[in-house]
């Protein structure tokens, strides 16, 4: 089975990039080995307790909970840089240091960024 790495490097709200990326990743489940990588401002998606009601857009954390089989990896240095390391994170999100994160990207057959 081919593997695909979806890289989210922009904030989860304020554009449709994260929603589009998660939809694409969900559609790939079962057909490919799917990993969603959170990098840079993308790591904000890992935060627990997201409330998007005021924005009138879907709650992206609920998508992560709905697709628990989707592997989601957060880049630890990006979390640390934003002071999120001690914040509550979604339980299904794995943490990866720089080397592990880059290895996951490199080992995938395909890298997709939006």
């Amino acid at each position, binding site marked *: 089975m081919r593997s695909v790495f979806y890289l989210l*490097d922009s904030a989860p709200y304020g554009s449709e990039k994260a929603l589009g990326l998660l939809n694409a990743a969900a559609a790939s489940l079962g057909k490919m080995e799917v990993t969603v990588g959170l*990098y840079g401002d993308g790591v904000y998606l890992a935060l627990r307790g997201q409330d998007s009601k005021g924005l009138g857009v879907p709650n992206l954390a609920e998508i992560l909970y709905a697709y628990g089989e989707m592997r989601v990896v957060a880049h630890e240095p990006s979390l640390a840089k934003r002071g999120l390391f001690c914040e509550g994170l979604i339980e299904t999100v794995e943490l990866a240091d720089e080397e592990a994160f*880059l290895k996951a990207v*490199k080992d995938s057959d*395909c*890298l997709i*960024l939006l």
Partner: protein
Amino acid sequence: MKVKEYMVLRSADVFLLTKTPESDRSKLCMKLLARSERARLYLAGDGVYHLLEDKAVFPPSCEIFACLEDVAARGVVARKEVKVLEEFYNILVEDVMEATGRFFSF
């Protein structure tokens, strides 16, 4: 420069970079490039500004190609080891189709 001149079948990772050197995506691309044993880097759009950097930032085994139109539009002067291609996208697509390594687009 014609497409066939660059039709080389060999194991290499292919990178397409369109962002400026200071962007986070460029930095991630360069980290992956450094971990690639053999790579070909295609620079287009604002990615051609990487040609202004010291060549030491690129791994020695990395072949670099740049889009002629984008180089000219930005007034960038490429070093002699950089292949500036008129048929940039044709060559890139054929390379991606034929190469046995991975393709990364930033």
